């Protein structure tokens, strides 16, 4: 345990009411929590843990088990447990993980004796708002058991910047008074982490010319898009910078500003918002994906976005496509044997794909005898560097080993850990280490060619829509519109395309044949990957190397350090180019020798080549390597105990985790390599993320000093009774005004709410309004206001979706069957605009897809249906209260029985959403042939969708009760994704 964690805990425990802890990301929140849990003793009562994400939870459990395993210490409360089982857990005094939905229902139904609780931990508290269920829980808990503490945590300080004084509002709605801020630059933290820093090697890998070209082009397009956004005068200009554009949170900033006026925006602005998102992804993938996958992704984008996007038509994006293609292949003419220039910086292996010996083959390729595909298949520069680093590590190791074993610590696991952003990169690097770069690229290339064929066959989008991207402003004029054809390959000529298709066909043919007639023709491509020579600037810095900076002065540090301490060679650009040209020449010679080989042989040969790749041949041995995907969020440093960590993709959180890991094991030797692309947005983004977090903490510190928190935050002043009384009197007043002084009972209003609705915030707001919320499982409707009023609530998005799926029709139908006043509640969101569309979006004709048409049709078919249009959650609560004022209270027992098919004895007494794999059910119901009447039988008949995919038609027919629907479904499942072959 690191010392500052102890400090945090003792600060937190001081206040018996609890508090909110915000710490820098990467400071191992899971360890902090588990240390806190160790302090819990069952005699205090049970401790509930709320809103933990699955990875966070498993890390907490792991670190709990770490020093002394104690399996019975904690458990999880799920809906599978019966009420009595839950009760015994609640009173057990243990540590219990629970979801907000179960907890709120058990609190409301008094199934949870609150006196047996010692307190509540709320993780991920940055995602809470005043109306979220956690706030509801906090309010109930405060009134039912004021002694219980509430401790909230977050390690995402940046998300506290969104909205006005978010931290303060959060404290208020959780009834807390203490805010604990623990930035990385806090004295205790930085002292401890910088006492024994690991040894750091920072490697800057130059990008290839093409990569640079793409990066520049993307940034240009981004900039152009941002300028366009600025022109719309709809967004705060200050936020619109390319740097901010690098982050996901940029979308949030923009959306938050635009949401209230979203319907007034033209298509253009909306498109810009989504284009910026796409561009950010492209920047990110440029660094993460190999050249072929990148090109493939780009082309998928082009097919799926085609007409709507603006960016695709900007001049610079033309460059993106151009360069991306050049990293993979080039097109030349057979006769001239020359390339169309521009590629001197790139490693090239020319190879003819055209087969002259196979003229009789009637493939369409023969028609364009002139075109030759030259594979470039540029490898990611980091690959080679990674390999060299690994070699170096192994070399050092062997040196050490030869010096004698005694130098090896026993806690030196010798494990080398490579940390990448995602699983995909991990797998690819693993593949690369095992099989060499050629094989990896070749595999990707083959996959690319195959999928190329499939993309090609996609039905082109409606071509009669050329009115679109008439370019505007900055993006203007550069447009080379001929949109009808641009869908595919604006830059690729027809013959080129055919050549690609031909190559793909060959590969497919081969795959089918499966046997290899030609033996491998190993070839030596002379010493291209040399001797571990350094081609990057290597900076070894002592002690607090520049990645582990004192975080407030990122930039200066970066600059100075890198100037003073370049240790190793940096080979000049020229030299690199020279080797590359040599290689190109070698490749060229080779091409002549094999000029007449057939496509399939070419492909095959390369395939074999890959295995005995040159790199592998002259490569020195490499130590065993473990890969770790940062996205998986597993905190594996403690498990793996690595001695070397190679940070392949930099990430602030992970860097901090390394620091903590080192601080906890001060005696351990730890070497950390950073692989950055030089002058890339990768570096920029990494630095900006640190700056952003520091900025967030500075803002929070300022806010903390200005906070105004009510004195009764501890909840003593607010008993349940007082709040209810208050509500009762006010509603009584309302009644006397409205209903001419009719005598109203003292009873509080009751609303019966479907369990599934506790995902939303409305039950919370209704309760705030003083209504009694009764959670039950409803078969018909979401809210029962009175014996005759049944409400189906739809947010705007739900409304559109359930119109399309037909579910709304079905729901209204059943509501009308059982209730005198069936109600559809259309609930808008406070933050968004209160309307479906702007006048200009309405169009000239009555069209079936318009929401107006759908609502009109619904009204025509269900004239008894009543519609409530609500501005917001709070407006809904007011409307409910008003509607209930002269109605009887609903009957819980009756409401539960409504619509349940009890006659057949198939009472489903537990139709709770959490018992279902909801997205699977939704998916199932969207498949053709699946209807309201047969989907339940399908779910009973097979365990999962994967199983369904394998069911033979006979079985489907049995389950679905008909050959025809079964055939529809089976055909759809098996339908070949459109392809030309």
């Amino acid at each position, binding site marked *: 345990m690191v010392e500052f964690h102890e400090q945090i805990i003792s600060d937190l425990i001081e206040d018996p009411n609890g508090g909110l802890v915000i710490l820098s990301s990467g400071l191992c929140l899971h360890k902090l929590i588990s240390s806190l849990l160790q302090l819990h003793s069952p005699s205090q009562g049970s401790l509930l843990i709320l809103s933990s994400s699955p990875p966070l939870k498993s890390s907490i459990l792991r670190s709990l088990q770490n020093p002394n395993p104690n399996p019975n210490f904690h458990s999880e409360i799920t809906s599978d447990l019966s009420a009595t089982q839950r009760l015994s857990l609640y009173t057990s005094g243990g540590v219990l993980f629970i979801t907000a939905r179960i907890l709120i229902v058990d609190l409301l139904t008094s199934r949870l004796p609150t006196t047996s609780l010692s307190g509540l931990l709320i993780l991920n508290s940055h995602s809470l708002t005043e109306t979220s269920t956690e706030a509801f829980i906090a309010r109930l808990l405060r009134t039912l058991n004021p002694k219980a503490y509430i401790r909230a945590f977050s390690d995402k300080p940046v998300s506290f910047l969104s909205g006005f004084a978010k931290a303060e509002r959060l404290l208020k709605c959780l009834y807390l008074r203490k805010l604990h801020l623990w930035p990385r630059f806090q004295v205790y933290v930085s002292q401890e982490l910088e006492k024994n820093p690991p040894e750091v090697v920072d490697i800057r890998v130059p990008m290839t010319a093409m990569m640079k070209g793409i990066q520049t082009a993307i940034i240009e397009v981004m900039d152009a898009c941002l300028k366009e956004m600025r022109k719309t005068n709809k967004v705060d200009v200050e936020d619109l910078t390319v740097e901010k554009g690098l982050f996901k949170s940029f979308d949030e900033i923009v959306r938050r500003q635009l949401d209230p006026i979203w319907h007034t925006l033209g298509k253009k602005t909306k498109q810009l918002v989504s284009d910026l998102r796409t561009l950010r992804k492209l920047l990110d993938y440029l660094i993460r994906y190999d050249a072929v996958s990148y090109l493939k992704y780009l082309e998928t984008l082009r097919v799926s976005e085609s007409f709507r996007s603006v960016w695709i038509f900007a001049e610079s994006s033309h460059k993106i496509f151009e360069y991306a293609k050049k990293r993979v292949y080039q097109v030349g003419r057979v006769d001239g044997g020359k390339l169309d220039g521009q590629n001197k910086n790139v490693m090239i292996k020319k190879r003819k794909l055209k087969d002259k010996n196979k003229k009789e083959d009637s493939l369409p390729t023969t028609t364009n005898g002139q075109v030759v595909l030259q594979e470039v298949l540029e490898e990611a520069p980091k690959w080679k560097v990674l390999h060299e680093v690994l070699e170096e590590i192994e070399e050092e190791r062997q040196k050490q080993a030869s010096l004698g074993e005694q130098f090896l610590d026993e806690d030196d696991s010798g494990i080398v850990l490579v940390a990448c952003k995602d699983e995909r990169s991990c797998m690819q690097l693993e593949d690369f280490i095992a099989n060499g770069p050629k094989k990896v690229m070749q595999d990707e290339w083959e996959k690319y060619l195959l999928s190329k064929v499939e993309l090609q066959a996609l039905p082109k989008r409606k071509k009669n829509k050329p009115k679109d991207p008439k370019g505007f402003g900055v993006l203007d004029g550069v447009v080379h519109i001929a949109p009808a054809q641009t869908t595919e390959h604006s830059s690729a000529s027809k013959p080129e395309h055919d050549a690609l298709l031909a190559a793909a066909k060959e590969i497919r043919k081969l795959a089918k044949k499966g046997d290899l007639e030609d033996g491998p023709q190993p070839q030596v491509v002379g010493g291209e990957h040399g001797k571990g020579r350094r081609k990057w600037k290597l900076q070894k810095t002592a002690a607090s190397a520049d990645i582990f900076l004192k975080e407030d002065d990122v930039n200066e540090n970066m600059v100075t350090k890198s100037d003073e301490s370049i240790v190793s060679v940096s080979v000049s650009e020229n030299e690199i180019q020279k080797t590359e040209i040599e290689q190109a020449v070698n490749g060229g010679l080779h091409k002549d020798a094999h000029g007449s080989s057939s496509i399939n042989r070419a492909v095959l040969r390369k395939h074999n080549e890959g295995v005995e790749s040159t790199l592998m041949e002259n490569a020195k041995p490499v130590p065993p390597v473990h890969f770790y995907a940062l996205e998986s969020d597993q905190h594996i440093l403690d498990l793996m105990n690595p001695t070397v960590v190679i940070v392949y993709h930099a990430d602030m959180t992970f860097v901090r985790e390394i620091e903590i890991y080192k601080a906890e094991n001060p005696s351990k030797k730890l070497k950390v390599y950073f692989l950055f692309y030089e002058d890339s947005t990768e570096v920029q983004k990494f630095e900006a993320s640190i700056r952003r977090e520091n900025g967030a903490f500075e803002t929070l510190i300022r806010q903390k000093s200005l906070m105004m928190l009510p004195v009764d935050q501890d909840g003593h002043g607010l008993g349940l009774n007082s709040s209810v009384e208050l509500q009762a009197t006010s509603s009584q007043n309302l009644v006397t005004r409205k209903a001419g002084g009719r005598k109203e009972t003292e009873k509080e209003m009751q609303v019966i709410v479907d369990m599934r609705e506790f995902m939303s915030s409305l039950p919370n707001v209704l309760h705030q309004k003083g209504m009694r919320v009764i959670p039950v499982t409803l078969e018909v409707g979401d809210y029962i206001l009175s014996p005759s009023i049944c409400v189906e609530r739809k947010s705007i998005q739900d409304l559109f979706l359930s119109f399309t799926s037909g579910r709304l029709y079905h729901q209204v139908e059943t509501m009308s069957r059982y209730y005198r006043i069936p109600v559809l509640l259309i609930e808008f969101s406070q933050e968004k605009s209160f309307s479906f569309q702007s006048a200009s979006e309405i169009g000239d004709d*009555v069209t079936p897809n318009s929401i107006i048409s759908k609502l009109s049709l619904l009204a025509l078919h269900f004239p008894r249906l009543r519609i409530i249009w609500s501005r917001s959650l709070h407006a809904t609560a007011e409307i409910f209260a008003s509607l209930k004022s002269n109605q009887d209270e609903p009957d819980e027992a009756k409401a539960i029985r409504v619509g349940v098919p009890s006659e057949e004895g198939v009472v489903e007494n537990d139709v709770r959403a959490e018992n279902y794999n909801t997205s699977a059910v939704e998916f199932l119901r969207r498949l053709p042939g699946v209807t309201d009447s047969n989907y339940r039988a399908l779910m009973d008949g097979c365990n999962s969708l994967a199983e369904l995919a394998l069911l033979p038609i006979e079985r489907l027919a049995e389950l679905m009760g008909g050959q025809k629907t079964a055939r529809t479904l089976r055909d759809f499942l098996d339908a070949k994704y459109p392809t030309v072959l």
Partner: protein
Amino acid sequence: LSSHYCQSRNAILVSHRQKGNPLLKHIRNVRWNLVDIVCDYLLGQNSCALYLSLRYHLLHPDYLYYRIRELQKNFKLRVVLCHVDVEDVVKPLLEVTRTALFHDCTLLCGWSLEECGRYLETIKVYENKPADIIQGQMDTDYMYLLNHALTAVRRVNKTDVVTLGSTFGSLANIMDASMEDLARCPGIGERKVKRLYDTFHDPFKRVT
């Protein structure tokens, strides 16, 4: 009344009270005639509409109630067409909602005269239309259906659908794909992979 109706079966009959309402400009897809009727707009044999501007309602809060009472029980579908033309909507809309709900009227809201006009047109045009466009009968185009199914999984977008389709070849193959194969698709990150995989492989019912 019925004579009017026979006269112009395909037109919206508009009460003289509504003469001069700028909304009429926006009724273009259907003919309309001014006649003497109790409701504001007669949209079919059994359906009628009252027009109410929220701004007017603020000045005359009882107006709607009296207009509804006049209608008596002559219509199956009685629409209150509410033009939302004030900023502060919560209170007036609550009153209108309450009145409409307890007096058997269906409330429809439009935010512009165009939208209000379109509601009137649509109800007239769709007078005898079956409900299939809202019953879930959908396009039978393969790509449409595939998109529709796969986007049931949160955050899966159209680009992902193309990627998945071209990688795996058929929906059955996608549903049966391993986590590793899913992860190899460009553009599909860790979380999406997990979400897809869980959707396909977790049992429909989680109960043990």
